[in-house]
């Protein structure tokens, strides 16, 4: 794990959602929509990664997973480009440290252990298949999926949530969906590509927050 990676998850976790950057509020609220997260929840259940004995614990773990996942797709004020896979792995490490330190945490120990497993699973699955890229000469950020990863991301339910998020960022004018996925060009060979071209955020939105 690269120690220089700027993690957003810990910042969001420790602050009031009302104070989050508007881009974080938009993506996380859209992903949390029951219809958008349905397939994702099915995948987590399939992998036995969610508590089954308490609705409150279950919602808590799911909420934290989605928070970490989309923190990895939230633009930073620093304009550093996030990495969804690294953000998931960082979230797992943060909770492993909390578990080791035996300090208060927002969920039971068993739920926290499930959270760690889920974040490791997602961090592994997303690596190289879901990527953020600088765009518009650094004035914006795009998110896209790799062609070989499309089947896996769909199976996990990431694609459904991304589509919901994309619709929301367009509706709230926080960004837009490029008409031509080739508009990711110019950022190296690892650019996201595929039938779903992802979406863009405009960094100027930070000034509205």
């Amino acid at each position, binding site marked *: 794990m690269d120690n220089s990676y700027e993690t957003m998850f810990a910042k969001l976790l420790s602050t009031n959602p009302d104070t989050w950057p508007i881009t974080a509020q938009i993506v996380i609220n859209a992903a949390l929509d029951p219809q958008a997260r349905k397939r994702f929840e099915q995948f987590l259940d399939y992998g036995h990664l969610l508590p089954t004995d308490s609705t409150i614990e279950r919602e808590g773990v799911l909420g934290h997973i989605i928070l970490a996942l989309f923190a990895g797709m939230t633009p930073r004020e620093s304009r550093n480009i996030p990495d969804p896979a690294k953000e998931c*792995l960082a979230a797992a490490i943060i909770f492993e440290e909390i578990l080791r330190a035996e300090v208060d945490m927002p969920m039971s120990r068993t739920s926290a252990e499930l959270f760690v497993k889920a974040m490791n699973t997602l961090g592994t699955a997303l690596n190289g298949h879901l990527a953020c890229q600088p765009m518009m000469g650094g004035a914006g950020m795009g998110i896209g999926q790799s062609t070989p990863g499309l089947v896996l991301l769909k199976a996990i339910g990431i694609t459904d949530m991304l589509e919901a998020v994309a619709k929301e960022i367009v509706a709230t004018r926080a960004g837009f969906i490029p008409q031509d996925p080739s508009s990711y060009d110019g950022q190296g060979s690892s650019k996201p590509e595929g039938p779903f071209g992802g979406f863009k955020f405009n960094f100027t939105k930070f000034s509205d927050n």
Partner: protein
Amino acid sequence: MINSTGFTNHGKLFTLRDQGKLPGFIGESLKHAIEKGGKLKEFLQFSGVFPVVNTIETDTVFDAIVEILVFSIFPYAPDAKVPNTAQELYSAASALGKPLDDDEKDNHMAVYLPEMRDSLILIGSIVQNCYKAETENGDWVMSLANPAAEELSKISGLEDIWIAIGDAMNVVLTRLQENHSQYSEQQAISPDENAFKVRYQ
């Protein structure tokens, strides 16, 4: 069903299989992997890329998928380059996406080509992030890429395949002890969980 992959590692192993020259430990690995492939098949079904009904035809398709996977893991010869398993699987998927010739169109199994293609891509995308192949003191080793990859390997059923291949190695080792001449060209080394090792001689 695979006929345009002659330059790939798995393509060369298909040729060896057709010539009856498949190395014994690879055949044994394939047998074990098919036997223990239930969880992988279940994951493919959950993912919506493989038929949920179990018939003789779908069993045949699944066996073919596992065959391509196993043939994408082992180098086809002692001096061959270590295959990039994920790229091998993508390459096999790509070959399946090409237009069918007349003979292929007449094959009633051809209706399963899209499922086979998507299954190979899905497995490839997981293998790419979960496993690494390397040479270690002259031995060829395939193992989990890092501890964080363990859960996805387990959920996808690939862990069962790796364990099955490890079991196959043990079977081959036992046979080697009984009859050294049978597998003289390659030697299987006993594996750990989620890793296996082969010494090519």
